[in-house]
């Protein structure tokens, strides 16, 4: 039902701005206007359209690179070769060090955030005590905290790990708290009626019921962790951030720079998509519960 409605909506508004006249949808349900000629365009296939647009971008990139030279933009073959160079010329050492710090910081952040979030969602007074700080730090720029962390921890492992924690911790806290707060009241009452001990309430009732929220929080927190990591390293010029900044300065190696960007993007998108898939698998459980 919901789905068919969404589809209907899309087709209704399909040919509004951005689409020029030629792009009238084939399965248009629009009977109020003069019937458009049913032009079955190759552009109705989304993969064909994607191929066209992405291909166009790549061609434009390649031509710009060839005209302006490698100091402005590396060619596509040079960039792809750059990905190989990152691994053959030993730059991957920095990448792995960065990854290790990212993982450490992120796991610590989750280990703190999920229990804190669960307590905030469960107990009003915990929420009231912590929410001014969580909400303020959540929305304001955490970048400005970096100098304090530098002075406290230097510029090595623990500094970068702490930056990751500070960046990553808030999304999972807020999402877990929201998830636990909205756990089905009947579910809670049933569990209490069976005299479930408080600790077990968290592990068997609150957290599983809040799981889709928690995983969404983990996904968003992971994005923040990567952001924090890159900013931390750009600031003190260490690790992958140092590479990014070095490749853009003299001697300029934009092929390696873009190769590194592609690697980072691929990593970020892969992890995000895995967590999204995980979220989708968790969702149906809670929706069957609602409809039952």
């Amino acid at each position, binding site marked *: 039902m919901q789905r068919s409605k969404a589809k209907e*909506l899309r087709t209704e508004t399909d040919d509004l701005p951005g689409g020029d006249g030629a792009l009238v949808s084939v399965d248009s349900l629009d009977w109020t206007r003069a019937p458009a000629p049913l032009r079955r365009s190759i552009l109705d296939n989304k993969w064909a359209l994607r191929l066209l647009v992405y291909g166009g971008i790549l061609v434009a990139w390649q031509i710009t690179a060839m005209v302006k030279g490698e100091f402005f933009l590396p060619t596509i073959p040079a960039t792809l070769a750059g990905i190989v160079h990152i691994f053959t010329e030993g730059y991957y050492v920095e990448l792995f060090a960065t990854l290790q710090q990212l993982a450490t910081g992120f796991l610590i952040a989750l280990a703190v955030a999920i229990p804190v979030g669960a307590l905030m969602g469960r107990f009003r007074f915990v929420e009231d005590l912590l929410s001014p700080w969580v909400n303020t730090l959540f929305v304001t720029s955490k970048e400005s905290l970096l100098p304090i962390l530098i002075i406290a921890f230097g510029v090595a492992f623990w500094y970068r790990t702490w930056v990751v924690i500070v960046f990553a911790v808030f999304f999972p806290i807020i999402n877990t708290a929201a998830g636990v707060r909205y756990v089905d009241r009947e579910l809670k009452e049933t569990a209490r009626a069976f005299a479930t001990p408080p600790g077990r309430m968290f592990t068997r009732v609150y957290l599983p019921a809040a799981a889709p929220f928690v995983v969404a929080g983990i996904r968003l927190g992971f994005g923040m962790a990567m952001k924090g990591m890159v900013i931390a390293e750009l600031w003190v010029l260490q690790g992958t951030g140092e590479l990014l900044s070095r490749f853009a300065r003299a001697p300029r190696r934009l092929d390696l720079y873009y190769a590194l960007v592609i690697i980072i993007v691929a990593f970020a998108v892969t992890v995000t998509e895995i967590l999204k898939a995980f979220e989708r698998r968790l969702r149906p459980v809670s929706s069957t519960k609602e409809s039952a």
Partner: protein
Amino acid sequence: MTHRRARAQTIDRRKLARWAASIVLFFVLWEIVGRSGIILSIVPPTDVFPALAELFREDDLMSATLGTLWIATVGFLIGGVLGVLFGAVIGSSDRWASVFDPIVSGAFAVPISMFIPVITVYLGLEFEAKIALVVLFNIFVIIVNTATGIREVPPSILEMARAFGTDRRDIYRRIVFPWASPYIITGLRIGVGRSVAGAILADLLLRAQNLGLVIRNAQGSFKLAELLAAVFFITIVAAITMGIARLVEWRLMRWKWS
């Protein structure tokens, strides 16, 4: 009715009391830890606040703040206009959504700041580069919210408008945008926060200026009290900006709740 309202008020009062307690507790703890000197980098608030006053007098903190907020404002206006237009295109057309959705959702997952080095290659370290960074920071959330809002317009209403012969421009002006406006305004509100964060980062990592320069100076000279004062001040500025944005959002959306 009155009974319920009275109860709501006492609950609110309890919440406020807890907030106040939490804030007082934080400063007391900060003072104790700072005085004890267990953690070297933490200076007690009784040293930090005089340093903050000093910053206001000597480093002209006000004009530094306005400088950073100016970059945020220009970037926000550009990102807001482009983001809403682009989001409207994606939200209205299945085709463009299928092409650009992967790019926009990818941009959400990716650390934008990794483009700072290449921004300096193409745009230098000055104003243009900073604006570009701010726009990259704020535009994607605005695009996504606008597109989502426009997809939420119920088809039955559009159908009815067409049945009455409303032309496309009016459909957009009178139906689509008003219907999507809560989403768009929320996107813009989040964009305000992103813009301020982007501007602070730009003032730190591109040419050090304004608030970024204040922090850099305090960090460079190892004046801990000054540094903590600057960080505290920036956090407050960002929080106030977000508070104002939230208030504006609430004002603009009041017609919907009443």
